[in-house]
Every structure is written in C-alpha cells, then in structure tokens.
C-alpha cells in the first residue's frame, strides 16, 4: 500500500465557484502531484460563433465569461472593426474604457472576496462583496444590467453615459475607494493573512515567462506586461503604466490587484474628465473578411481572439485564448510542494475563470 493520499478536489467543491477537478496526490498534507481534469464547463462556443451571424456573436462572445463579459465583447468588436477597417469614434473609445475598467474593478473585488473566502476570512469576504456592490450599481445605472452590459457593438457603443450618470459614477467611485482603503489595509497588513499568503505559490520571473503567465500573475512575478500599453484604447493618453510586484507569491498577486483597483478608478476618473463629444458609433456595410489576432488586457490578463472571416455573414473560425488558459500551466507548476490548506489559496490567487478557459 502506497504511503500517498489521492483525493479529488472538485468539480463540486465549495471553494471553487466553478467546476474543475484537481486530482491531488498528497503525503501527510503536502501536495506532491496535481493534475487537472477540465471540461465541465466546455460548451463549444467557438463552434456556435461560427454558426451565428457575426453581429449576433457580440452577445454570444460576451457570455464567454460573465465576470469580464464587457471586455470579451470589446475585444471581439475591435477585431471585427480591424477587419472592416472601421475607425471607432473617440467618445466610444472612452466609454468602452470606462466600462472595461468598471468591469476590471468588479472582477478584482470579486477576486479579493474569493481569496478572503479561500483562507477563511468571512468578515473580509462580506465587506469586499459590499464594496463590489457599489461598482455593480454603477454598471446597472449606466447599462441597465449588473453583469452583462451589452453596450458594446461593432463600430462603437450602443449607449451613451449621461452627465448625471457620470456624476453618479464619480460619487460611486469615491465611496468604493474609501471602503477600499480600509479593506486594502486589512488585506495588506493583517498578520494572519500575511501568514497565509506570503511565500505561498511562488512563481519566479523566469518561470512566469517560460510558462507564459499573463496578467496579474505575470505582473506579480515582476514581468511588466500589460497590453493596455499598446494603446487599443486611450490608455496611453491617460498616462497608464503597469503595476508590478516582485515576489511572485500569492501575496504579490493580491497586491497587484489591490493596486490595480485604485489605478482603474483613477483611469475612469481621468477618462470621464476628457470625454470627447463625438458620435457613439460609425455605421458600416458589408461583411468582414480576412484573419486577425485581436488582443486586449482583460482583468485576468492577455485575451487573444483569432478571427477568420470570409466575407459572408458567418465567421469561418473564431478562436479565443483566454488568460486563465495561459495561467493554468503556471498554476500546475505552483501546486506541488504546497500544503493542502494552501491549494485553494493558490488556485484562487491566479483568479481562475474556468468558464473562460473552456468556452
């Protein structure tokens, strides 16, 4: 009889909001091997996107993942716009930025809440979710839905943000940032949290690069890699610079997101201050043709859509490589050697979105 413990971790497991299975092999409580079994959320969305009209696809692709839905739609629209050769009006670019950053904020707050849950800090979980409701309110006010905004369309945006709503966004951000300051203090300085996060799930800079880590996971390992610098939206104009940490552990990954929250709020404020007065969208005719690899910095990192269109209203191929897909390999690298109690912390620390990963 072997001296090793074999347990299934998931798919139905309370610390994972989404179904994924890790087959863990342990010695006492130390993980020696972790293998993932995925496919519990695989729908076949890429195929469906080929069967539907490319304009309908905006709604479908928004539902790749509910947490960062707007950014999926935005990336898809940008890809199609590139194929059609459309120049999106400036105001639409700014509005997209505002919604995208709101989405990033609610996603990061959700991450913080889930992280607090994974190390068993119920109070912090509750307070973070409360703070997140502020952001959700802002999205509901501006778009009419808390999660699925559906405001992005090919050629621009579908809906404007009125001056009243802008004011409301300002006060909402104030409130969110105020409670974020308190929460941030707790997250960053609490002894028990540091105990659970520091030195856990370390990913060195070299390994992060080799395994293709993206987003906050890469940034926490010291790789200053953020596609917002490439200027697909007016980020450079607003003085955007990526946030990095150096330690590469779960704590660093949390700190990156914590700091990005403030950064996003500031980006939204700056964008609101410079909102140009142009039409919301440009009309277009015809169907797209050609191949494009569109990329965007989603809240979890680099999102890549490969779109191949052939001039008909159906796409020939739609392929999504979501950030969690890229972060799976680093995750599997981090798990062996940790304690069983740290498994949820490490898994949550990459902010996994299995729905994205499996489409």
């Amino acid at each position, binding site marked *: 009889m072997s001296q090793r413990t074999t347990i299934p971790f998931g798919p139905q497991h309370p610390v994972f909001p989404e179904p994924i299975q890790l087959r863990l092999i342990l010695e006492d409580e130390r993980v020696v091997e972790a293998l993932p079994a995925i*496919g519990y959320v*695989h729908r076949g969305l890429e195929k469906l996107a080929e069967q539907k009209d490319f304009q309908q696809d905006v709604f479908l692709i928004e539902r790749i993942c509910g947490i960062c839905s707007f950014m999926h739609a935005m990336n898809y629209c940008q890809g199609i716009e590139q194929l059609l050769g459309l120049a999106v009006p400036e105001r639409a670019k700014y509005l997209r930025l505002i919604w995208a950053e709101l989405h990033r904020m609610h996603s990061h707050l959700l991450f913080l809440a889930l992280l607090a849950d994974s190390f068993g800090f119920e109070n912090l979980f509750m307070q973070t979710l409360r703070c997140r409701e502020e952001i959700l309110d802002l999205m509901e006010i501006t778009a009419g839905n808390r999660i699925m905004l559906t405001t992005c369309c090919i050629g621009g945006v579908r809906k404007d943000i009125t001056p009243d709503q802008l004011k409301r966004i300002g006060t909402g951000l104030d409130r969110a940032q105020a409670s974020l300051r308190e929460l941030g203090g707790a997250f960053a300085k609490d002894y028990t949290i540091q105990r659970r996060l520091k030195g856990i799930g370390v990913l060195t800079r070299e390994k992060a690069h080799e395994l293709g880590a993206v987003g906050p996971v890469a940034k926490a390992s010291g790789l200053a890699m953020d596609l917002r610098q490439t200027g697909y939206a007016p980020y450079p104009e607003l003085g955007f610079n990526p946030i990095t940490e150096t330690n590469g552990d779960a704590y660093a990954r949390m700190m990156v997101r914590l700091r990005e929250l403030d950064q996003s709020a500031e980006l939204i404020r700056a964008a609101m201050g410079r909102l140009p007065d142009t039409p919301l969208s440009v009309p277009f005719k015809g169907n797209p043709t050609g*191949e494009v*690899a569109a990329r965007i910095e989603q809240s979890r990192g680099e999102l890549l859509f490969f779109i191949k269109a*052939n001039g008909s209203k159906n796409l020939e191929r739609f392929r999504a*490589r979501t950030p969690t897909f890229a972060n799976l390999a680093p995750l599997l690298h981090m798990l062996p050697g940790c304690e069983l109690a740290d498994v949820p912390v490490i898994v949550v620390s990459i902010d996994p979105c299995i729905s994205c990963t499996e489409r």
Partner: protein
Amino acid sequence: MSLLPAKTVTPDNLLHEVAVLRQQGYRLVTLTCLDQGTGHTVYYHFDKAYQPLHLRLEIPDGQELCSVSSLYPAAMIVENEIKDHFGVKFTGLALDFQGRLMLTEAAPKTPMNRFRRCGMELDARQPAAASPAAA
C-alpha cells in the same frame, strides 16, 4: 482575403524555428488550428514586448505533428485541446489526455472540424447521464 502575417514553417523545421524564438525571448501565446478540408492549418502565436509574431504550419490529414511542449511546457494543454477538437495528433506530448481534455465519451468527436463532420454522427442530444452507467 488578408491572411495573418505569419512565417510559414513545415513540420520538419517547426521545432528548430520555435527553439530559435524561445532563444530570442519570445513567449508562446497559444496555438490556433483551422480545418482546411484536407488538412489543418496551425498557427503558433508568439509575443515579445507586445510585438506579435505568428508561425503558420500546414499539415495534411493523418500526419502527426511534433509537440512543442518540450520547449514551452504550457503548450501541452492547448495541444491536447486541438487533439480533442480537430483530431490532430501530436507526438511527444508531455501529458496526453487521449482526447478527453474537454470532451467526454458521450460528446461528439472532433466537433470543431468545419468541413468534415467527424464524429458528429453521434446524437448530441443524447443524455450523458446514461453514459457513466454504460461504462
């Protein structure tokens, strides 16, 4: 139709080209597979300092493709996915999921193929709950 600006490679020099890119500090973003009817096109997307670089590779049906997971371990997952979705076989996979990464036994086989409905003869509406009992 404007194709993605990409360098064309062959299955023979693929590993060499990828090794060169790895040497130059490129990051493997992902692989994309397209069904061309009689074969598959596989794109290898790379990135270095926000500059994308793509490799295009054509393989006829039935030919096995060498896995790049020896150079980029993370490629293992996407290669398994392509195996699931298109039936393209890879040699030298660090971990071969045997076509069961995303799909299970009751699911249609190689559903992403565009021109061939390989395995699609299976009824997609068949209840899956029956399948574990049958196993």
